[in-house]
């Protein structure tokens, strides 16, 4: 049986308190299956989730309901991305 995780949304609230997301371009490194991404994606300008595990990315893509989120495979140590693009880089339980 799966647990009920963080029903008070403490993780999201701490993220929002530290760093307003509105109109921001966010990179989530180690997004996994996008569980946390789905909590904040609607508040951002755009989100890119990156993770090395294709099995998790398949779930992230399948459960994603918004156009401004996308997911790609990649390693944090060698990001397949251009320089100086993202307003916010998020490591959520991935550092």
């Amino acid at each position, binding site marked *: 049986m799966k647990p009920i995780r963080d029903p008070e949304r*403490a993780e999201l609230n*701490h993220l929002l308190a*530290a760093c307003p997301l509105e109109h921001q371009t966010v990179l989530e490194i180690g997004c996994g299956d996008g569980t946390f991404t789905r909590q904040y994606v609607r508040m951002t300008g755009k989100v890119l989730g990156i993770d090395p595990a294709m099995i998790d990315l398949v779930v992230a893509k399948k459960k994603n309901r918004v156009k401004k989120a996308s997911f790609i495979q990649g390693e*944090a140590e060698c*990001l397949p991305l251009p320089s100086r693009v*993202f307003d916010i880089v998020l490591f959520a339980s991935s*550092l």
Partner: protein
Amino acid sequence: MVHALKEAWRVMAPLGIMMDIRPLSIDSPLEVISDEVREFAGIVDMSPDLKYDIAADQAIETVIKEGFFIEKQVDEFEYVYYWKTFHGMMADFEERWKDEIIIPEDVINKAQQLYKVSRPNGRLRFGMRMKSAKYEKKIKSHQ
């Protein structure tokens, strides 16, 4: 880890923000709660992952010292898991955290004993400490 942080710095816009949110290996309470009571079963040992905390903290310290980031804010909060059954909790611990946490036998027994007492909306509660840290990208002279 230092390489990952430097890559994060590279892809960030000038004055961009990096957030590091992660669980801490701080021993955390297991409780049985209901609409009426909240009872303490014991402390769960989170020490097996301490080495990862230390490695992450050291990596952050390195990139700050090397002038990639400025620390803006560090905070802690509680991230809570609830289970509606004792067996569900044990199965979940086994599947999710087998090598990461240690639940002492006496804590398991106490939680089971407390959970057996029938109460409205009875459930098991595990609150782990999380770190939330905010860093600002520092502009290096060659950027």
